[in-house]
């Protein structure tokens, strides 16, 4: 049963707007410029937010809608913004993100883009992927999913040429809850089963840290050529409930079947993925994976002594909430007191929790009184300071900690990481008590 706490306003929001999710998705694509159609604050807040989270340069731009005249509205800002971005940065494509403001004034993006193409034929070669992301609807995860879907809808070739003989090209639709280390693990596993993968969006390659060059556009993520080639793939793996929508587009447009994983965290889900890969490829399991599974299992066994009797609470976007919540309750055996999330999507309603709440960190504070520790983003720091509960930082944003983006939560690697991290929190609680 999902609860909604009756109160007129959000107190310490957990939710981030769709804009932030959509931009994050675009940052995982090669040489795309995310362009926010709205007042410049929408972009500036998001840029500040993501720069601190990733500790990376996060290119993005704004159409800087300004002044009453523009509010009433022509589309000169939008046109000028697109033209300027192409002149200055010459991106492979533009990811155009709308805001509450432009949605309220009822901007007709399709019509406006049509007029842009008419007016500026010289920019015809730069595609513009437009995503509708009003910030009075949905959450970051829906924005992320919409951006991926819109990219596919706009850029997939209409009549894909397919090579039926290989069965070797796999699309991976990577949900917003995946860290760089998660994407790296998934890619390595697929490749070691002899498959070629295209990850969309590949936020690991672009935001995972690189120092070989300076960039004004996100680089090394999924390229536009790869996105075109996704139409030729044989199979799609969608990771996270929010990616199903994009998988459907690949299915409908290019007849590519897909399998959706609500989570890849924990032994059960990891085993399910490896079984699928064994069936699909008919290949043996690489040795390193066997070793890693043993390590994960061993870590769980070692740490389980301190899991018993513990209670925790968690706040995150639906996919991350389900992945971690499910693993910690069902495979670690720690009781879930309160799970707070931001939108109704994915599988999180299956979680066994005292309370599942659509709400904010204010609700988390109120309904997590029995919890031994908390899983939430770094905005929960002041709260945990008040309540003296240890905080394990997950989700967006994590501004006050290095390396969170390189912790794996998926696969056997994730099992080991989480068993150790959560185990250490529980262990120190036990040691504190015994003193």
């Amino acid at each position, binding site marked *: 049963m999902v609860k909604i706490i009756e*109160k*007129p*306003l*959000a*107190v*310490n*929001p957990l*939710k*981030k*707007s769709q*804009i*932030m999710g959509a931009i994050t998705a675009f940052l995982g694509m090669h040489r795309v410029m995310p*362009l926010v159609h*709205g*007042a*410049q*604050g*929408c*972009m*500036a*807040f*998001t*840029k*500040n*937010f993501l*720069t*601190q989270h990733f*500790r990376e*340069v996060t290119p993005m*731009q*704004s*159409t*800087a*809608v*300004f*002044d*009453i005249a*523009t*509010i009433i509205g022509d589309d000169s800002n*939008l046109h*000028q*913004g697109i*033209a*300027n*971005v192409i002149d*200055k940065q010459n991106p492979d494509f533009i990811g155009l993100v709308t*805001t*509450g*403001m432009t949605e*309220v*004034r009822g901007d007709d993006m399709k019509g406006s883009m049509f007029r842009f193409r008419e007016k500026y034929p010289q920019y015809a070669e730069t595609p513009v992927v437009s995503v509708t992301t*009003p*910030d*009075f*609807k949905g959450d970051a995860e829906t924005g992320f999913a919409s951006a991926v879907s819109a990219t596919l809808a706009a850029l997939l070739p209409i009549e894909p040429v397919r090579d039926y003989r290989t069965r070797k090209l796999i699309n991976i639709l990577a949900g917003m809850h995946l860290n760089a280390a998660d994407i790296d693990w998934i890619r390595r596993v697929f490749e070691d089963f002899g498959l070629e993968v295209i990850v969309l969006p590949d936020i690991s390659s672009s935001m995972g840290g690189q*120092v070989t060059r*300076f960039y*004004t556009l996100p680089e090394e993520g999924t390229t536009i050529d790869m996105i075109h080639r996704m139409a030729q793939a044989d199979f799609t793996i969608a990771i996270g409930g929010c990616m199903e929508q994009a998988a459907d587009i690949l299915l409908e447009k290019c007849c590519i079947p897909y399998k959706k994983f609500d989570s890849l965290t924990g032994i059960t889900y990891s085993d399910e993925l490896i079984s699928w890969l064994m069936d699909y490829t008919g290949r043996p399991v690489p040795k390193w994976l066997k070793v890693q599974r043993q390590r994960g299992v061993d870590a769980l066994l070692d740490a389980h002594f301190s899991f018993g009797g513990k209670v925790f609470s968690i706040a995150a976007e639906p996919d991350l909430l389900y992945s971690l919540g499910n693993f910690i309750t069902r495979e670690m055996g720690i009781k879930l007191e309160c799970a707070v999330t931001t939108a109704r999507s994915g599988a999180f309603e299956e979680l066994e929790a005292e309370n599942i709440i659509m709400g904010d960190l204010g609700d988390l504070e109120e309904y997590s009184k029995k919890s031994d520790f908390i899983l939430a983003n770094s*905005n929960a720091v*002041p709260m945990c300071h008040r309540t003296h509960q240890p905080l394990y930082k997950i989700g967006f944003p994590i501004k006050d900690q290095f390396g969170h983006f390189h912790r794996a939560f998926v696969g056997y690697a994730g099992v080991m990481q989480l068993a150790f991290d959560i185990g250490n929190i529980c262990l120190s609680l036990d040691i504190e008590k015994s003193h």
Partner: protein
Amino acid sequence: MRLAIQQLTEEPSCDHNQKKTAEQKKNACKKPTPGATAGGCAFDGAQIVLVPIADAAHIIHGPMTCTGQSYNNRGTRTDKGSFHQYGFTTDLSELDIVFGAEKKLKESVRYVVEKFSPKAVFIYSTCVTAMSGEDIGAVSKEMQEELKVPVIPVDSPGFSGSKNLGNKFAGFSLINHVIGTREPEKIPMFPINLIGEYNIAGELYQVEPLFEELGITLFSKMTGNAGYDEICHAHRSKLSVVICSQALISLARQMKDKYEIPFMEGSFYGMGETRKTLVKIAENLGSDILKKRAEELCDRKEKETYEKLAPYLPILKGKRVLVYTGGVKSWSVLNQLEELGMEVVKSSTRKSTEDDIARILEYFEGNEDGLMPKGDGKTILNLMKQYDAHLLLAGGRNMYNAMKGKVPFVDVNQERHFAFAGYDGTLELARRLVYTLTSPVFEVTTRPAPWEVSFG
């Protein structure tokens, strides 16, 4: 609202407005270029000024971007409360926008007052609520009467302008709804208003002892480490000192018009500036004894600071710095770096007033080569190379640009963790500069990888 914007952008004390012709004035406060912008909106600016008032709740009437991506992100420090870490928002849904959300806003104010008992409530309008025509002024008035708690409307839709304009909106709300609403219990000998100082990373704590020692009371701080009550009686101060040259000068001028409080500008970045500011404050307070005391204090502090600086100065001597910051810092920090024996090769002029630029030019002895227009990370890194600069001093946004170029960097913006004001701040800045300049990281990370070494 429209009137207010006009009034604020035509600020006569704003240096860059005085010299303008009528035509130029129409374009007061430059508009950003679509597709080539940096920096926040007016709502962001309003928050920067007001959110440090941490015993008051700040309710944002708008959709999620305005709060979800921005709250709990201020480097401001305070011991007056914790509301600067809270995000309160009406989180508007589509239905709220269609049918209006004033009722929701009222309930929100009631909820916050009942549950958190703040000293006051600030309500911010945003793009969406300004467009849908929510009357936050009326709501504030009604709630204030009902709840007997001050409720202050802040008209700050992001589309109305830049951060700078938002600072002014905040000042507008303070002068119209807060300042002068309460009388102080007693008025000290030398009460002053400190305007535009937000106690980022604790900078106020670095200069507060100086004032204490001089016997000057920071009667009303706007708004670093300020309680709501102290701002109410700002009209009883004898002098306003504006720290950030541009943003809140309109507030100081309005206070002069309304309450005849004279105002002056100042800065605490660097020992020279600190001395100048303290002495000028003493002069403006009209006390010769105070002036003498200020000079003596500065003599002593400078001597102490130079002693403490001794181990750092040889390392800093002659190092070349590129400064990329804005406003008052674009010149005040130059003097601070010069005091440390460093050489500034270029300083940026974005967000600077003509007066600011004149002062930068003063530093470069009139050579306009020292001025650097707006540029992206690439431009900055190229300039670093061209001028053989050792270090970049800039805001957090450029931190990772510097790291891509593998150049030493010191952060001088809002989210930084270190305070650089006054004497202790100069010492801290010297330390931070030395730490980054002498870090072994830069040698190790610029070394070629084994496979990049050619065996010729």
